[in-house]
């Protein structure tokens, strides 16, 4: 891009009537960053990026802060902050005030924090003196500020797996406020999380399509017990985070493959993986070696972040189209999620990718043994004709059990998160235990992440975050919206045909006539 083009792009941002002040500042900062040359990579890597084989998710040309950070808020609450000139809080109100102050200076790719912490664990010690009513009132005010100060649906809070007053109140408050923020994950441990807490969670799902569920024992086995779920279901080490997220378009990789499907994993996939890893390495080195973040950020100097708790995320997407194209090379017309041979090839590709990523050293990724963590990347607003992550194509989802059988075997290979959306018919709201049953079954079969959406709800889950239908309509008609993520969400809704997602056939009297005498 020449300097005239940059001027033109910046002028357009300055004059764009749909941006809020903060959205404009954020866009201008990225435009300024992109005047610089990106970190140098090989010609092959540059071409792969230009042609869409790999994608840096528009992270910017000069990475100067990690993409995702998960500050150790527990330590902050215990020690107070010199930088913020705040002592360790002693009351519930002091604690929420303290946390809001910290969030205000937590960097991430979005300009807002992507993680608010394990809110129930953080706040439970401060809640002991409050009545249930006092607790709810305070949490509700806190919730309102989270949404209004950090209007971005990638901003994510975690709850569970143990029961407590704060988690119960938080789920109820979340239902009542009808907000996209905080994005919410409940960690579930079948041995620890009681059924009635799951029932509370499913009631919240039926109202606002949250929380997302994560398989706590599986996460602890992979990342240890200090992990958090941030942004679009990215599981990362607490006290660190992810330097970058670069994703490989498996559909594009398949289009570059010559020969039969059986040779893809041997001949084409390793090259594509290496090109992706090369870009990740260049970006990580720029961040760590050329910018002062890890020397000067107060989050680092006060011990809330440390370089040795960082990793990097290697994203995959477009598995559905990849598999179908490769099988077409063999003269077979099969669908991932519908045909077992297609599922088997999908699982083989994911396992091979996991092996290749685990063999490829990655600098400054001590938190994960000097390797990147594999992540099933849930899409971008501009994606067209390519399915998010390792999901079954939108509209092609088979019946509930068949769907889960197709996707569940992938989950063990994605320690940094994978989301497959299960859309439930709206009548499940009358029988929430059914949703609890399905969630428990899915976790038992080895699903790492379980994401529900209730058909025809006001809240639509896009990739891993939520938008409200009325905001999609506002964006479509050229109006501004308060949440930055809603602009992205409206693009995805249109480009990825999310309104065609098939409700799972949990039987409903509205859709199938039931045998009635």
């Amino acid at each position, binding site marked *: 891009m020449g300097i005239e083009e940059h001027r033109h792009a910046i002028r357009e941002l300055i004059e764009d009537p749909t941006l809020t002040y903060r959205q404009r500042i954020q866009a201008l900062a990225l435009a300024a960053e992109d005047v610089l040359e990106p970190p140098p990579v090989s010609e092959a890597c540059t071409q792969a990026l230009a042609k869409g084989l790999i994608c840096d998710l528009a992270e910017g040309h000069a990475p100067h802060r990690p993409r995702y950070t998960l500050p150790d808020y527990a330590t902050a609450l215990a020690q107070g902050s010199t930088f913020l000139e705040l002592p360790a809080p002693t009351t519930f109100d002091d604690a929420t005030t303290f946390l809001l102050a910290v969030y205000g200076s937590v960097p991430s790719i979005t300009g807002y924090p992507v993680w608010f912490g394990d809110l129930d664990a953080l706040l439970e010690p401060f809640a002991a003196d409050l009545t249930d009513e006092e607790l709810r009132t305070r949490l509700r005010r806190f919730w309102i500020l989270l949404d209004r100060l950090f209007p971005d649906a990638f901003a994510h809070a975690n709850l569970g797996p143990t029961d407590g007053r704060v988690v119960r109140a938080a789920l109820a408050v979340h239902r009542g406020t009808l907000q996209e923020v905080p994005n919410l994950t409940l960690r579930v441990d079948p041995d620890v999380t009681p059924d*009635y807490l799951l*029932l*509370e969670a*499913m*009631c919240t799902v*039926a*109202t606002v399509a949250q929380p997302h569920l994560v398989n706590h024992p599986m996460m602890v086995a992979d990342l240890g017990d200090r992990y958090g779920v941030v942004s679009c279901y990215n599981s990362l080490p607490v006290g660190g985070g992810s330097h970058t997220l670069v994703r490989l378009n498996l559909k594009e990789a398949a289009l570059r493959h010559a020969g039969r499907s059986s040779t893809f994993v041997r001949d084409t996939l390793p090259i594509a993986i290496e090109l992706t890893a090369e870009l990740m390495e260049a970006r990580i080195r720029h961040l760590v070696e050329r910018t002062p973040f890890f020397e000067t950020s107060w989050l680092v100097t006060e011990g809330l972040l440390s370089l040795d708790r960082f990793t990097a995320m290697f994203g995959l997407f477009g598995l559905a189209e990849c598999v179908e194209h490769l099988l077409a090379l063999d003269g077979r017309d099969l669908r991932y999620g519908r045909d077992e041979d297609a599922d088997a090839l999908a699982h083989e590709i994911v396992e091979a990718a996991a092996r290749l990523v685990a063999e490829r050293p990655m600098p400054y990724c001590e938190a994960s043994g000097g390797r990147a963590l594999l992540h099933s990347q849930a899409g971008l607003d501009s994606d067209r004709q390519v399915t998010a992550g390792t999901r079954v194509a939108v509209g092609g989802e088979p*019946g*509930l*059990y068949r769907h889960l059988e197709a996707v569940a075997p992938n989950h063990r290979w994605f320690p940094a998160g994978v989301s497959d959306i299960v859309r439930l*018919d*709206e*009548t*499940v*709201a*009358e*029988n*929430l*235990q*059914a*949703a*609890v*049953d*399905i969630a*428990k*079954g*899915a976790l*038992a*079969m080895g699903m790492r992440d379980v994401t529900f959406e209730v058909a025809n709800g006001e809240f639509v889950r896009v990739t891993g975050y939520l938008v409200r239908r009325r905001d999609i309509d506002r964006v479509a008609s050229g109006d501004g919206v308060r949440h930055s993520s809603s602009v992205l969400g409206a693009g995805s809704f249109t480009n990825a045909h999310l309104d065609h997602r098939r409700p*799972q*056939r*949990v*039987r*409903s*009297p509205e859709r199938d*006539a*039931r*045998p*009635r*005498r």
Partner: protein
Amino acid sequence: MRALVADVVDASCVDGPGNRYVVFLQGCTFRCVTCHNPHTISPRPTPTSRWAEVEDLAADIARRAPFLSGVTVSGGEATLQWEAVRALFQALAADPATAALTRLVDSNGDCVPEVWEALAPWMHGAMVDLKALDPVVHRELTGRSNGRVLCTIRQLTAIDRLTEVRLLIVPGANDDAAQVAATARWLAALDPVPPVVVQGFRHEGTRPAARRYRPATTALLEGVAARLVAGGLPPSLVRTRGIVGAEPAPPAEVPVQVGA
């Protein structure tokens, strides 16, 4: 042991508490004008029915057990094939993979007491339809008297196997104030009073003759529910099906010491 099966649904949230595996047996004793699935009425094999071995059904249920709260046998009228129902429930109780599932029957209530006696040791409960308390209206709607239905409801109450009574409200047939009040009095006299579910008649799946009745509206169902409460039923035991957004309630209690 074989069963003549109209259909199987392996994930249902509308046939009892939680996610349930539902077996619809072929054949019914009633000839309801309002039937949503008239093809399940004939007790003989039809183009849409099939014979299934009970052990195969049990094996398929075992495969889905981690996702289920339980199993419901519906119809048609499940009790027409009560021996197959009992065999299925016994098989489920005997297999550790399925023993924890609740076993419910969805019934029109039109069967003799001996059938319930045979099923009771293996069944957690039955959900019974009461089409109308007035025998004349009942005959108009179903072609049969309701004598055995009322006996069924009393008997299942006495042996602690009545999960719920379902009232299918058909506008113009069984929704008038006098009938609803009488139904409330009759149900309130049971000890214990069972949970009562008010459902609405719809046109989906019915035969042309059913068009003589209007579909029920949500407002009508809410009105019927209110009159049932006014007629003596505890509010906590009356709910309508079709209203969303309620606060979560714990799953319905079902007796547990059955056919271990």
